[in-house]
């Protein structure tokens, strides 16, 4: 334990002689990271795919119910992704249906690509050493990289939510929202809940983003890191669906992801949400510090 306590001290020394810098500098670094991220064609492609999901769901539900037999569609809706049954009657629910549809795979996959690429991508394109030549320090660079991945989580989630809201309002009637507890809230409060939900979903991805960052520090190949991160995601999703492994389920980062739906209960049911937040915090602490341990001690050869 004494060694562990020594480590933060080492970290302070680590950046080298330029120990103290203004926090504004970090902000500048973060801004440049995020703008680099957002200028990449790959980011646009990822966001475009995410934005397309609600459009597809919306059109599919519209065609399904438009072809007559609305009652039939409703009965079958129980088997599909969550909230699908409500979409026909209130376009607002497309936000939740789209988040429920993208959260298991599409969203984390996009985050995994960005997180896995964060360090390894720089290493494989040979730009990592130039980044480190700048007086940033490894710890700070890592923090900035993680912050930009988190920003991407939020942006990606908002893209899904906003696209779903637009499509929902376009294709279906909107109005007062009936929460899944059966109470009714106004459209304005519904929007607040939708925003809160997007935030919850973005936070849900924080743990997975930390894992991606850690994997990214392990290898010099950007593609390898992305593949490993996404592969891990799929493995965990499979583990989470095997009932015999229910003992480990509460510790899998994806287990409480769907708890975002609890925001739509009245009153909001916080138990699973707070479990989700705690679990994500734990993953961030463990894999963030592992990424730090790896990255600050790593030989940079590219």
């Amino acid at each position, binding site marked *: 334990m004494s*060694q562990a306590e020594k480590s933060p001290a*080492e970290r302070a020394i680590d950046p080298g002689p330029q120990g103290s810098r203004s926090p504004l500098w970090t902000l500048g670094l973060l801004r440049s990271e995020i703008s680099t991220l957002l200028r990449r064609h790959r980011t646009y492609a990822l966001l475009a795919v995410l934005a397309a999901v609600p459009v597809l769901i919306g059109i599919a539900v519209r065609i399904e119910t438009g072809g007559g037999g609305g009652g039939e569609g409703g*009965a079958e809706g129980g088997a599909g992704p969550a909230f699908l049954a409500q979409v026909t*009657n209130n376009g607002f629910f497309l936000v939740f249906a789209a988040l429920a549809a993208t959260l298991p795979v599409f969203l984390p996959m996009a985050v995994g690509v960005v997180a896995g690429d964060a360090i390894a991508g720089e290493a494989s394109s040979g730009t990592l050493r130039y980044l480190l030549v700048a007086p940033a320090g490894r710890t700070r660079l890592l923090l900035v990289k993680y912050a930009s991945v988190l920003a991407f989580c939020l942006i990606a989630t908002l893209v899904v939510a906003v696209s779903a809201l637009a499509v929902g309002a376009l294709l279906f009637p909107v109005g007062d929202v009936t929460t899944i*507890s059966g*109470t*009714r809230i106004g459209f304005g409060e519904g929007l607040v809940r939708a925003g809160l939900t997007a935030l919850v979903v973005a936070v849900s991805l924080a743990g997975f983003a930390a894992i991606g960052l850690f994997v990214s520090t392990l290898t010099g190949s950007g593609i390898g890191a992305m593949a490993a991160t996404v592969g891990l995601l799929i493995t965990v999703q499979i583990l989470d669906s095997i009932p015999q492994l229910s003992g480990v389920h509460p510790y899998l980062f994806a287990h409480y992801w769907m708890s975002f739906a609890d925001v739509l209960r*009245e009153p909001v049911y916080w138990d699973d949400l707070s479990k989700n937040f705690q679990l994500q915090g734990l993953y961030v602490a463990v894999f963030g*510090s*592992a990424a730090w341990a790896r990255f600050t001690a790593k030989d940079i050869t590219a």
Partner: protein
Amino acid sequence: MAPNDSAETTGEATSTVVGRRKAARYIVPVAVAGVAAATIGLVPALADSGDPDLPKISAQELIEKIAASDEEQLSGTFKISTDLGLPLDGLAGSLVPGGRGGDKDGGAAAPQDKLMELTSGTHTLRVAADGPERQKLSILGDASEYSLIHNQGEVWAYDSKSDEVYHAEAPEGRDGGGRAEKAPKAPEGAPATPKDFAEQALAAAGDTTSVTVDGTAQVAGRDAYQLLIKPKQSGSTIGSVRIAVDAENGVPLKFTLSAANGGKAVVDAGFTKVDFAQPAASTFAFTPPKGAKVTEADELETGKDERGAMQKALPGQLAELDGLAGEGGFNVIGEGWTSIAEFRSPGGKGLPEAGSGDMPAEAQGFLDALGDKVTGKFGSGTVFKTRLVNALLTDDGSVYVGAVTKDALVRAADAAAK
């Protein structure tokens, strides 16, 4: 950058020091994981240890406290886990007419099916009550919720998963009080609230039962007395019934039914959060969402009789057994906890024999796999076991059912054969 450079430029000795320092960094994630694991392990243990200090109270006083409890306003979260040990997982659900896949019957949101689901597995419920006129019960599902709302003469059920609504007029003239009244009465025996549980358990009391106060406990953050009810007779499969009663207002907060042979509680139902303040009026307000499919109760009911039968159909066959009782007659052997119901089927024929042609061989094998073959003075038969209720089907067509052990069933059958 620093460790990296020094490793390359200095000699062997420093390189091992640097290597060690590098390795030391990994202590941080390991320590974080270790602390987290320790916290996960320790916190429940610490939370459990604090049994509150309450003045001593007799069992009689405690029961009176329960009876006198007139708390009509509460809201809270309720958790129920049931492990009846049925031969097949989820059999309880499938035994119900139109069980889980009830959608095809047209009454997707009808309460009976949903309440039946509570008889197996673990469920989280939310309850809210404001006097006899307003109650709400919600079963929380994955990204969905099933709500049952009674609000002044109207009963609504809303299934958010299928976006379907069930509507009924609350039965006139029925005095509220219990929560079960909010809906067309829950199927007999289906668990509802601690209060219902307590009343059922106390009704069975008598000379055959020991009722004691067994210490105190913390339930849902409230101090509670524990009422322990145990059968005095041997041969019962019920080990004990434990009811945690709020020390302040006498509301039963937790109900635990344990089997005599130990293991996980058969039924464990209790509040995880409870608040005795008046719930917001909006909790009980319900207007069907625009476009949702609404099923009226009268449309569902093709006849009163059918409805009655539905209510009785708790474990599917029980309804049949009721029918048998009418024709073949049945009597109760023993009393109290060890009472055994004996049915004689009119045909005088038990389970179809293998190869008799009544039943395909596979089905026969399936039945055999579910039960244990037993023999005794009465002849031979098959015992079907659950964790609580056992049943003996003799080959000559008698059925013995009770919350008793296999041996007790055989003894009863032997006695009857004499």
